[in-house]
């Protein structure tokens, strides 16, 4: 792992200075701030920006202030976005289960003789999982126990047969379709990226946040900036034998060089410059989430699971803390480390990989509820396809068509949408057929969760059925 250093980036030391100044101002709780009062000395918060914060989303900026986010530590674009967005704006969290998760091992017709015949070694044994609340002939696989609890509590909507017509069995093509929200191999913006291009800001990269250390294509925009991090506390920089003001100046210089060249006519120059420019914005915004030792400077009201080889639960913990702090997040994308391309030894992948993912998502939900944020956040879980109904003889399954997807949140309708896809009426390749089109789900989410006209985002939006997804 990267080593950490006591010397830290400028945003952090600035926010430390601000916190110290606040403590000395006789106003221990920044929520008591009144926009008409003079500003605490030494915080670097200029009046215009502060009023901007006070005029709009009080809670966002106040919450941010409590974490030391403000003034120079909170750059103007972020502050403005936090203000404009307000404290009640909806957030969508997109979680991609890579590789094509086997829907028949997530939710299984355990007593169906056809299922047992198709899955001689992989079938979920009757009684081993949790019965599905809405249909007793189905059972959640034992690895999906945490999903069962969310569904029982009415906080999870399940699509057991989601897909699209003329399914493509390539991981990359099918995943691309899901990412861009159309069966179009040439479309280069993500469906959430196009949404952010319409409603987002040209100065707030946090509006589309990938938490996979690299940009998630679902969030790819044509115009507005988006950012990639791992966890908020891991986003930091240092330099050997450069510290203090000179180090701050160094980072600012790199970012402002990026600002100056991000619109270069040369695409490669622009790519580098844009990243440098956005690093500056994100660095300042995330500095308060990190201690001088590089640990998380936030706590979670609930305990997240820990497991070897994954920090997915910890990424969700960081996400909840960022939302609670009022950072202007809008669409967030995460990919757990486990790959579900189970051509062989499928049971091992499910037993070790899925429980921690499902428990982390359930914990994230509990975290949001404990912080009073649950009504603002909806989690969308998806995979590029399901798998072949007949198992393949390597105790695994090959690429299929229809698969499973979920929505989690207090405002999700919490029921099954579509039908259980038949195992006797398979397509010509032996795959289950879809009965809900993912593009219809995207249109419904855009309209019901974001209040946005889907036709401006999803090609041929009027061709797809809508589903009641939000209460």
């Amino acid at each position: 792992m990267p080593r950490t250093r006591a010397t830290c980036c400028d945003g952090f030391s600035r926010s430390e200075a601000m916190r110290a100044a606040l403590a000395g101002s006789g106003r221990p709780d920044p929520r008591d701030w009144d926009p008409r009062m003079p500003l605490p000395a030494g915080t670097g918060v200029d009046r215009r920006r502060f009023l901007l914060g006070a005029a709009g989303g009080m809670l966002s900026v106040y919450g941010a202030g409590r974490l030391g986010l403000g003034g120079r530590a909170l750059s103007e674009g972020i502050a403005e976005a936090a203000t404009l967005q307000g404290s009640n704006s909806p957030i969508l969290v997109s979680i991609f289960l890579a590789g094509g998760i086997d829907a028949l091992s997530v939710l299984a017709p355990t007593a169906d003789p056809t299922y047992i015949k198709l899955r001689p070694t992989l079938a979920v044994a009757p009684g081993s999982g949790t019965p599905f609340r809405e249909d007793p002939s189905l059972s959640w696989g034992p690895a999906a126990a945490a999903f069962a609890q969310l569904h029982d509590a009415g906080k999870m909507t399940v699509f057991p047969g989601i897909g699209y017509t003329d399914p493509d069995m390539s991981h990359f093509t099918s995943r691309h379709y899901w990412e861009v929200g159309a069966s179009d191999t040439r479309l280069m913006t993500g469906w959430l990226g196009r949404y952010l291009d319409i409603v987002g800001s040209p100065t707030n990269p946090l509006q589309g946040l990938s938490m996979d250390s690299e940009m998630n294509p679902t969030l790819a925009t044509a115009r507005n900036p988006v950012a990639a991090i791992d966890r908020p506390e891991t986003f930091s920089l240092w330099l050997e034998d450069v510290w203090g003001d000179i180090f701050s100046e160094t980072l600012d210089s790199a970012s402002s060089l990026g600002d100056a060249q991000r619109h270069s006519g040369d695409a490669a120059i622009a790519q580098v410059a844009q990243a440098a420019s956005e690093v500056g914005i994100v660095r300042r915004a995330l500095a308060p989430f990190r201690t001088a030792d590089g640990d998380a400077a936030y706590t979670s009201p609930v305990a997240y699971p820990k497991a070897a080889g994954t920090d997915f639960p910890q990424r969700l913990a960081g996400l909840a803390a960022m939302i609670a702090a009022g950072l202007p997040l809008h669409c967030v994308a995460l990919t757990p480390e486990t790959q579900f391309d189970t051509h062989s030894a499928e049971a091992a992948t499910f037993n070790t990989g899925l429980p921690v993912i499902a428990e982390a998502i359930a914990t994230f939900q509990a975290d949001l509820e404990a912080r009073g944020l649950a009504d603002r956040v909806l989690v969308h879980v998806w995979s590029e396809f399901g798998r072949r109904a007949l198992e393949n003889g390597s105790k695994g399954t090959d690429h299929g068509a229809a698969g499973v997807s979920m929505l989690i949140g207090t405002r999700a309708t919490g029921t099954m949408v579509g039908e259980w896809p038949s195992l006797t009426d398979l397509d010509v390749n032996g795959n289950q057929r879809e009965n809900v089109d993912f593009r219809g789900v995207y249109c419904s989410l855009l309209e019901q969760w974001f209040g946005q006209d889907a036709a401006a985002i999803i090609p041929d939006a009027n061709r797809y059925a809508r589903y009641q997804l939000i209460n």
Partner: protein
Amino acid sequence: MPSLPSSPTETFPGRFTEQHATRLLWRAGFGPKPGDAKRLAALGLDGAVASLTRPSGAAQLIGAKPHSAPGQPLDPVDVWGDDHCWWLDRMVRSTHQLVERMTLIWHSWFATSIDGATQGLMLKQNQMMRAHWLGNFHDLLVDVTRDPAMLLWLSGNANTKYSPNENYGREVMELFTLGAQRGYSQRDVHNQARALTGWTNTWNQGSGPSNFRFDPELHDDGVKVIFGHRGRFTYLDTARLCVQHPLHPSFMIPKLWGYFIAEPIPGPTLRALERAYRAGGFEARPLVEAILRHPLFYEGARMVIPPVVYCAGLLRAQRRTVQTNSWAWIGELTGQRLFEPPNVAGWDYTHWLDTSRWSGRFTAVNYALEETAIDPESKHYPERENAPQAVARALAFWDNPTISEATHRSLLSFSRSAQRLIKADWEQVPYRVMRQNALRALIPTTPDWQTC
């Protein structure tokens, strides 16, 4: 110096300068060492390209041997990360730069990962690909198809006549030879899987997978239909049929071109190279020699330098070598951990940077400069150095790379701001030292340096 046969397509007509040589060194190697660009420019275009594509003798590794930590040699088979460092060291030190660069291209093309294979098998695959570097694509494909790491990675060892596994059968067409939805159907995928049956291996509790072999008992020797051809096909036919497919050259050549040149390949160039590729029996060398001499290679838009090339280049520019296995996790941070591509499609060479990857590169610069950073307590630094002198010194440290006017102004502006921070007398030297360290770090983070 070997001469080159004439190119089947147009070649760069202008004078071959140091600037052109620098681009060639970054795109067909791992960046220049001090003086390299000048030496290469003196050879002229054909001479420079030939020195890369037809190097004489065996590769030599120049400079200090690699270490994972002081006094600790690398253990690439058994220690996590030392595999990455072992190859990075060859990229840094080998005199045959294009051999390593082509091996990197084949690694991304036939992307295999330690997530599905062992480090030892990945290293063997790496040697196999290195041996094929500019050789025959068909022969490379045959060796990839029966390569133990690939057999593990794409389930070739689990593909038997009793239960065909389509994993490799699909990817060999979609990703390796034809392209998605180009000239094959699901029926071809299934029949390729049948043709590929028969490979197996032994598992050993202690040593893992071994004894990879073709077992005729496990092979489906029935008649298959692939691309409309009928026969009792085997894995050898899979490779032959894919390479002979009429749509293979129009997939292979633009893909290869894309590793070297940002612009799409022009139609006439593609057609000329397709003819040469077919007529020559699927040899890679004539293609690469044509691409490296093409006008668009020198006149076209810049490309972002791939992360591992960036890291190797930082060390080469200082004549330094790999002295810490931190380079492995830096590979992860920058988005290119060797032997662990993101998936079977390899790395996306069109989009290397985002906020996270840029920060990773900043970390790479920091580690590259670890040994050369000047101690701020040093007594031997000019205490009157002014802002332009500091910038000039830092640029000279990097052998005076070409940077734009705008970038130069930005460095100068930083240099002045840093000087303004000097308040107390005791700060005169330490602040100037830190400014110099900072400038040396800033130069390779500029868009000028990160692209070529």
